[in-house]
């Protein structure tokens, strides 16, 4: 890369054709450090960057914006959303106080400023936070947005009778005081390091009090506005057909200057990911498509036309293999994989160590996932401040064999190792999904070379991921030796994510397999670290605690990370200003999108 190319790239960043993030990634790939890369760009402040790329100087005039969601929204109340699709659809009309940017930091939307310890809005004891709201924000029906709406949303979502899917973000709030018409003070029951869980990102979208007031608790599902949202967003509601289409039009009173650019928005659903990608990248019929689970080969071929590109953004989701710490083949008190029966050989560290050396992450990345993932040695990868540097991913059949040999596992006549009459034969299960079956095959081959026999099992996704406690094939019952799937990290704060190794979360018959500790690994030190992180308010110390937790899970090989997934989306080359965050909805920054 010569100087002229570099200046060209910098110019592209300034005009918004290239995101700062991608530029930095490219520079890091060239061997530069991230701070150096941002210095080259003139070091604008982190919050200003999204604003600086927005070029239009007036509101509207952009024509229609057409986006494809191959799984389409089925309802438009963010507190009832059962999946990303519903949240993405709701986010066109509703907004939170602040959004999470790609690095997991907050960017103000309906808030006038972001609370922090420095500006005194976050209490030193972590028990309260004060939000100042933007003034002059109106709902789509003309009523003003005030502190009352914030108080109402807490009451609405925290009420168990509402059965809101967002309840976990609101139930630990003790009370919300209205300081003045545009200031609220949120008081938590306990010290809360992740105070931005409520009212931020996709669990923080705010409903208007005057519309939903009559439909709280048990009556919540009768609200007509569940299907006809009235929000504060850049686009006003026009039409919604569940499972098919969401339409909106420009909000002439939007609270951000010169925004939005498009006169109408249409979110069309249905079909499959590949053809959605085609409609954006190959034919240009649509401008944007969400969640592109498409093979690398096909993506490259589609991109040749030059009408669009597949872009990626990091998330915290991790495809990983779990090692069952309990015996899945022995029934104790009517329960398989019970903590009362330890696994006959997966409890031997040597076996788990060997297993982790037999996962060929490089091949899985290159042959299967392509830009849909990155290789990693960690379970907790993002945001980058939580990523441990202590581990390295290694694929080494030789070394795995040595470890097993040293631990007394000797190869038998059939090539499978055994010790004290126990053969190293494991059942390896996952859901039916082409990349997963390919991964299984790669690992099975390597394991056979080292003397471990893997029997592959694949289960229909709708059964594997179901909550039907009576079905032994569900992932949370874990009725096999090892299993593989992707765990999602839903928020930039890893607390909930890391709770899946805590001993009180063990999934068992008693809690109808609702517990989130699927491996049934129990470790007192881990529990102590977790408890400490729960109330640690110093962000640096807290990050260090999570890194140690990750290292414990990795070094004890409770899980073997396979691939760190990225979000992939198809973006038309005419569409600018698209910056997708792995911590928020694809539609979170819709107001910044425009066509050049």
């Amino acid at each position, binding site marked *: 890369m010569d100087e002229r190319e570099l200046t060209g790239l910098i110019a592209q960043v300034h005009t918004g054709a290239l995101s700062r993030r991608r530029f930095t990634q490219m520079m890091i790939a060239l061997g530069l450090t991230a701070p150096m890369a941002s210095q080259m760009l003139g070091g604008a402040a982190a919050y200003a960057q999204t604003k600086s790329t927005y070029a239009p100087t007036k509101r509207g005039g952009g024509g*229609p914006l057409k986006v*494809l969601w191959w799984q389409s929204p*089925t*309802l438009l109340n963010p507190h*009832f959303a*059962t*999946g990303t699709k519903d949240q993405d659809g709701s986010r066109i009309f509703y907004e939170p106080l602040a959004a999470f940017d790609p690095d997991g930091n907050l960017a103000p939307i309906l808030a006038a400023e972001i609370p922090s310890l420095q500006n005194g809005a976050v209490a030193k004891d972590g028990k309260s936070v004060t939000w100042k709201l933007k003034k002059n924000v109106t709902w789509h029906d003309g009523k003003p947005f005030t502190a009352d709406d914030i108080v109402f949303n807490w009451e609405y979502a925290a009420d*168990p*009778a509402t*059965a*809101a*899917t*967002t*309840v*976990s*973000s609101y139930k630990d709030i003790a009370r919300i005081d209205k300081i003045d018409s545009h200031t609220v003070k949120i008081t938590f029951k306990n010290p809360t390091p992740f105070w931005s869980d409520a009212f931020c990102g996709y*669990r923080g979208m705010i409903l208007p009090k005057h519309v939903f007031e009559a439909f709280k608790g*048990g009556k919540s*599902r009768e609200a007509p506005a*569940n*299907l006809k949202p009235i929000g504060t967003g850049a686009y006003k509601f026009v*039409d919604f*057909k*569940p*499972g*098919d*289409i969401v*339409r909106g039009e420009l909000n002439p009173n939007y609270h951000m200057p010169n925004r939005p650019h498009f006169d*109408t928005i*249409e979110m*069309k*659903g*249905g*079909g*499959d990911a590949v*053809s959605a990608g*085609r*409609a954006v990248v*190959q*034919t240009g*019929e*649509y401008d944007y498509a969400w969640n592109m689970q498409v093979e690398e080969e096909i993506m490259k071929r589609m991109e040749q036309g030059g009408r669009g590109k597949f872009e990626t953004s990091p998330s915290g989701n991790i495809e990983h293999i779990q090692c069952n710490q309990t015996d899945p083949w022995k029934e104790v008190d009517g329960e398989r994989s019970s903590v009362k029966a330890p696994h006959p050989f997966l409890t031997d560290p040597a076996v788990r160590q060997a297993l982790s050396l037999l996962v060929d992450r490089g091949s899985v990345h290159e042959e299967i996932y392509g830009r849909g993932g990155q290789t990693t040695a960690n379970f907790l990868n993002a945001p980058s401040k939580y990523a441990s540097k202590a581990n390295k991913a290694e694929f080494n059949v030789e070394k795995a064999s040595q470890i097993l040999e040293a631990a007394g596992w000797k190869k038998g006549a059939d090539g499978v190792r055994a010790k004290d009459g126990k053969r190293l034969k494991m059942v390896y299960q996952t859901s039916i999904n082409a990349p997963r079956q390919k991964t299984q095959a790669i690992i099975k081959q390597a394991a056979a070379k080292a003397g471990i026999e893997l029997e592959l099992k694949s289960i229909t996704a*709708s*059964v594997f*991921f*179901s*909550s*039907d406690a009576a*079905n032994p094939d569900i992932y949370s019952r874990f009725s096999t030796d090892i299993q593989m799937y992707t*765990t*999602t990290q*839903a*928020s930039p704060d890893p607390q*909930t*994510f890391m709770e*899946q190794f805590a001993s009180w979360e063990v999934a068992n018959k008693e*809690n*109808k397999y*609702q517990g*989130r500790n699927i491996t049934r690994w129990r470790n007192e030190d881990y529990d102590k670290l977790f408890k400490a992180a729960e109330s640690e308010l110093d962000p640096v110390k807290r990050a260090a605690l999570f890194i140690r937790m990750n290292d414990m899970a990795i070094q004890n090989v409770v899980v073997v990370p396979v691939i760190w997934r990225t979000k992939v989306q198809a973006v038309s080359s005419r569409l600018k200003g698209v910056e997708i965050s792995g911590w928020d909805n694809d539609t979170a920054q819709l107001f910044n999108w425009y066509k050049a």
Partner: protein
Amino acid sequence: MSRYVVRRLVIMIPVIFGISLVLFMILALAPGDPFEELATNPNVPPEVRMNLRAQFGLDDPVPVRYVRWLTSMVRGDWGFSFVSRVDVVTLILQRLPTSLFVLGSAQLLGLLIALPIGTFSALRPYSIFDQVATTFAFIGFSLPTFFTGLVFILVFSLTLDWLPFIYRADIADTGWRWWWQHARQAIMPVAVLGLFQGATLTRFVRSAVLDVIRLDYVNTARAKGLSEGATVVKHVVRNALIPVVTLVALQIPAIFTGAVITEQIFRIPGIGSLLISSILANDTPVIMAITFVFSCLVVIFNLVADLLYGWLDPRISYR
């Protein structure tokens, strides 16, 4: 005749009841849960899902749920979608016009192709025209619609860039632009389904006409000096149509359920795609409503076809 109709209608009641029972049991026994997505989401506490299951009555025993469903169905209440929390009727009515339009046009196109070509082939059997028509008909019904659909998209959308391959039921334009947009996006799906239908029907029409054309009364008509056109239209085709009418009548219920695969390929928001997405989401009330209405239509149109027989061919009578 009317006694026959009444008897058939009475027999229908246990049949439909049996169908509903079987459908309900299969759905109740199938694994899965409409709130599955919540189960794998760490931020949703399990109580929320339990609460929703209780609210929607999913925890009650199956017989209780069946009786509840049956009584409300009898009262005309089709239930409530678990996934979108909308009345099932509303969901179906939103989708029905699109399905009717696309499948109706396809059925019409099929008939328009099959009638002239089938008749003409039969009038000159084993001529070059017949050979060509037969070849195309075989190709037509051997190729599944999901294949022809993709080929059409490849040729007309990706290579030639003439037609859109994403169907939108509500187009914001008005006036002639609205009509133009609708026609343009409907060309490919209607052609895919229509050509498939047409190919099958052509074979039917051809053999039906061949059967009739050899009969004595046709020779008589010719002998008494009727023109060839009048003989064919008035005497041959009319009688040959009897089996074709039955076939078409039996296909009408299929228009209601939509063309599942074609709708998926072109993203047509019809009943078929609603059925598929409901099955994937375990949205039992919607699946139940669609499959149940479909079975009722099949039963009813069987009767209609039988009655049409009697009307077209007075020799057949019912007692």
